[in-house]
């Protein structure tokens, strides 16, 4: 009985098959998405970024700045590339864990920077102060970048949308944190780091929770 239904299903599907254009390779689609995000972020930074303040803040700690920026950028880029790979059936599941080392490296480098500030007499500041602006910045910038990325990912109609959405959330949150570096008017403290982390979790959680509505499930 079931075989008959399966045969009938095959005949119906085959009769109504329309030509489709195969999706480009995931690495190519990821590159196109990254290029759009980089172009948007570069324009915003060129217009509004405070490079003098950035140089002043990291004066004598250029290596630390380069490491921190590289770790954030790598987290964003790897998470976005991984999201495109995971959205295609049959690609390696290892992509899900790919951004974790870079994310850990980012937290480690920033944490060491906060610790270094203590040594330079920065003292321990446990007040939120301007940190809430950072949270608002990361969430708002992510909200602006996420629809574009999610729209590109939705073209693949992922069979398991949750990991795709979580990786996309991490990608846009890290991109926003990278842009924030150019607008951050003060040295990062431990409380800032905690707020940045909270903002990232908020973005990743929100994109993850919305996965069934934003990514058309196959």
């Amino acid at each position, binding site marked *: 009985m*079931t075989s008959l*239904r*399966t045969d009938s*299903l*095959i*005949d*119906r*599907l*085959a*009769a*109504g*098959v*329309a*030509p*489709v*254009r*195969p*999706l480009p*390779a995931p690495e190519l689609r990821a590159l196109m998405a990254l290029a759009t995000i980089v172009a948007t972020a570069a324009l915003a930074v060129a217009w509004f970024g405070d490079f003098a303040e950035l140089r002043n803040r990291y004066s004598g700690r250029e290596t630390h700045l380069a490491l921190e920026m590289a770790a954030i950028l790598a987290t964003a880029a790897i998470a976005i590339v991984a999201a495109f790979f995971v*959205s*295609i*059936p*049959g*690609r390696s599941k290892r992509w899900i864990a790919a951004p974790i080392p870079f994310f850990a490296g980012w937290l480690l480098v920033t944490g060491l920077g906060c610790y270094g500030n203590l040594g330079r007499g920065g003292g321990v500041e446990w007040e939120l102060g301007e940190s809430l602006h950072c949270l608002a910045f990361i969430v708002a910038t992510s909200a602006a970048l996420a629809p574009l990325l999610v729209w590109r990912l939705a073209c*693949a*109609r992922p*069979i*398991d949308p949750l990991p795709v959405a979580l990786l996309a959330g991490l990608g846009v949150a890290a991109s926003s944190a990278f842009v924030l570096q150019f607008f951050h008017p003060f040295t990062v403290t431990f409380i800032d780091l905690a707020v940045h982390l909270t903002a990232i979790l908020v973005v990743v959680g929100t994109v993850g929770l919305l996965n069934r509505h934003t990514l058309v499930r*196959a």
Partner: protein
Amino acid sequence: MTSNRWHEHGDRWGELLAAAQRGDSEAYRDFLRAIIPFVRGIARRRCWSEQLSEDVVQDVLLTVHRVRHTYQPGRPVEPWLAAIVVRRSIDAIRKRGRIGAKEVFNELAYETFADPGANEPLDGDAPRTLARMTRGLSQGQQEAIELVKIQELTLAEASVISGQSIASLKVNVHRAMKKLRLNLSKDPPA
């Protein structure tokens, strides 16, 4: 069947699926028929029930139809297809678990009369009743009723099979139900 043998089939499947992406319906029919044993093999290993694994096979066919644009010609088909089967098997097991946690099957609940014979449907009665009730429905409405109400497919699945949009299916089901109620009230069974 060994993995080498699947690999031999894989090249042929890749050609058929690439042709299906160009709209070749014969190649697509051959592809879907050829993959059934492979799909069934994985589904049976994952699902404990014969019926559940057959449901997974049909769900996989619908999924393959929806995501056929994600296959890159020239790449092996088996990992692409196996990932779909594994995912759909997990979905089916979870769905069965959710339903099993909330619903209980009670065979006696369907009995309405004390006399066991009275509960048996009359031979050929159901098709006649159905034919009488569906009289006057348009082809689109009949198709919508058959897929959504009789075969109990989801709107998305019915949309893939019928080629109607989800909105059209909803409208057709609504109008068909209205007509069926009217036909039933006008023409009571003898």
